[in-house]
């Protein structure tokens, strides 16, 4: 996961601000109910699947719904747009109840995952579609659309049909189309998923700028932690239709509370009981940490902090030493991700050279160590 590097690369100064904002687990009330912005509890029943997610956001906020496939993120988004009816809960936007409002009457703009640009219309007409439907005259709608395309740097492509646009251009047209109706709530479903890696970088930066300019609430859905962390001020992690963790990007990256998030941000995560600097893990062995805590805690450390040895290191001062076995190897950029089983199941990252020197192969026995300073313990 590249997410880890990105998250931990953040200057440490961020951490202090993040800790000000407490990590709330499943707090559905959301505390303050603002007059402006979004205040909702989305309950949707779909056969065996049950979604119950509460969200609040002030104007100008960018909230990311992060979660694995099938967690209910997209369903939540569709419920916000009015494409899926609420079974229960409420939906207020700028103080106005929208529960019973049909989608076409909601002040909501949506950027769909694969954009869903109307293939028979030009970029300009795609963007003008919303204003037209909301009552603008033909000329006025086109003028507005032209302005939006200008803002997106797409003035030259106004006459192009969607299939002639590159992925990044299509994404911007989709954004322009959603914004052209002046929505009070902007929804983005996996806004970068359809792009290749290179375009993604560029579009992500642009999108971040446009979202920063957007004065109303934006909610984006993604399964990519990097997108979430770069684009959003606040992350809401959804698993199995529930909110499992909520907080600032850096906070969530440093203190994951579920295996899913830990994996997502590329951390080894364990639950255990702390007693001073020692944490007795539920999984078996103990870990020595720098934090002085007691009671139930999480311990996390990045795979890059793990060092592997073919023989038991004799001179090593590391207290956290486990005997493991290689379960699998996988190339990860210019690194090798090693999956280990044994005393403690963990993931380790090492360079290709180091992996070759160790002669790693599935089934090979290895010794793994982690320095206490590279672990991070926090109350569960």
């Amino acid at each position: 996961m590249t997410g880890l590097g990105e998250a931990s690369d953040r200057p440490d100064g961020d951490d202090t601000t993040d800790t000000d904002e407490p990590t709330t687990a499943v707090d559905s009330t959301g505390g303050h109910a603002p007059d402006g912005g979004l205040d909702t509890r989305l309950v949707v029943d779909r056969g065996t699947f049950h979604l119950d997610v509460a969200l609040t956001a002030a104007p100008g906020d960018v909230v990311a719904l992060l979660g694995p496939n099938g967690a209910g993120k997209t369903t939540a988004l569709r419920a916000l747009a009015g494409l899926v009816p609420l079974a229960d809960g409420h939906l207020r936007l700028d103080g106005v109840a929208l529960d019973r409002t049909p989608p076409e009457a909601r002040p909501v703009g949506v950027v769909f995952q694969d954009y869903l640009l109307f293939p028979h219309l030009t970029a300009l007409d795609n963007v003008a579609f919303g204003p037209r439907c909301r009552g603008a005259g033909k000329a006025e709608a086109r003028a507005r659309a032209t302005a939006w395309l200008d803002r997106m740097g797409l003035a030259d492509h106004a006459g192009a049909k969607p299939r002639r646009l590159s992925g990044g251009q299509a994404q911007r047209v989709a954004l322009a189309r959603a914004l052209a109706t002046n929505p009070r709530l902007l929804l983005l479903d996996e806004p970068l998923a359809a792009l290749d890696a290179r375009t993604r970088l560029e579009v992500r930066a642009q999108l971040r700028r446009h979202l920063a300019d957007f004065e109303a609430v934006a909610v984006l859905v993604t399964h990519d932690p990097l997108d979430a962390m770069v684009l959003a001020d606040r992350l809401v992690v959804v698993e199995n239709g529930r909110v499992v963790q909520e907080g600032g990007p850096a906070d969530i990256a440093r203190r994951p509370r579920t295996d899913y998030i830990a994996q997502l941000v590329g951390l080894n995560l364990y639950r255990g009981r702390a007693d001073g600097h020692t944490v007795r893990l539920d999984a078996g062995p103990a870990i020595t940490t720098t934090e002085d805590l007691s009671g139930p805690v999480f311990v996390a450390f990045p795979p890059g902090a793990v060092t592997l040895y073919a023989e038991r290191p004799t001179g090593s001062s590391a207290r956290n030493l486990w005997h493991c076995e290689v379960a699998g190897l996988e190339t990860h950029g210019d690194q090798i991700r090693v999956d280990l089983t044994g005393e403690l199941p963990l993931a380790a990252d090492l360079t290709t050279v180091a992996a070759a020197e160790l002669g790693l192969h599935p089934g090979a026995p290895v010794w793994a160590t982690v320095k206490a300073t590279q672990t991070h313990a926090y109350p569960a």
Partner: protein
Amino acid sequence: MRKPGVPRTGARMVPVPLLVPALVGLAFLLLPLIALLVRAPWRDLPGQLASPEVWQALRLSLLCATSATALSLVVGVPLAWLLARTEFPGRGFVRALVTLPLVLPPVVGGVALLLAFGRNGVIGQWLDAWFGITLPFTTTGVILAETFVAMPFLVISVEGTLRAADPRFEEAATTLGASRFTAFRRVTLPLIAPGIAAGAVLAWARALGEFGATITFAGNFPGRTQTMPLAVYLALQNDPAAAIALSLVLLAVSIAVLAGLRDRWMRAS
């Protein structure tokens, strides 16, 4: 392993158990047409075709088939949308009913139309009493009979296209403020245009060849209700050569029209 990009192997790749029946099927479809061409009275053809009745019947055929297609479009496309995009109790049953004319012998369809819209029919008697409208033995009757038989082709074709089309385009339109009807008109309709065109062509071709329902419901009167198939059938009674000549005209016209449409419409699909 065969290198990619090497041509020529197409025919060898086709398994014989598929190839042989396929060729038999193709031959079966083509041979009667070839026989028609081989045995056509080419020498008499100019004389046969000079008759104004032929052109009268052809003109009527084209007029009625086109009108029936238009009528099918006006009511058939919304019906297809209803079947593809909405949920209501008994939808499957309604769908089966729509396809019924496909299996009904057209003559029975004609009788059913008489019983419904005839001068003495369930609805026809009121049409006659209130508006003085009688449909049997009129050109309108021909159009109705052809529509009855041809519309299911259009509905089935358009419904299939609608089901294959991404319904999220309609959703995208509604999030932009479009009502469901506007979304249908401005987004779905253009998107499924190729399917509609294909369905319309099918319906048109079916209407053009319609015989049983037409002659039963609308009768046979030159210039008013005698379309080409009726003329062909009656010519067959005592002048098979004329019947073949008429059939060739019908064949040529339909091939010309379908080929023309193919270039203009179908390429989009």
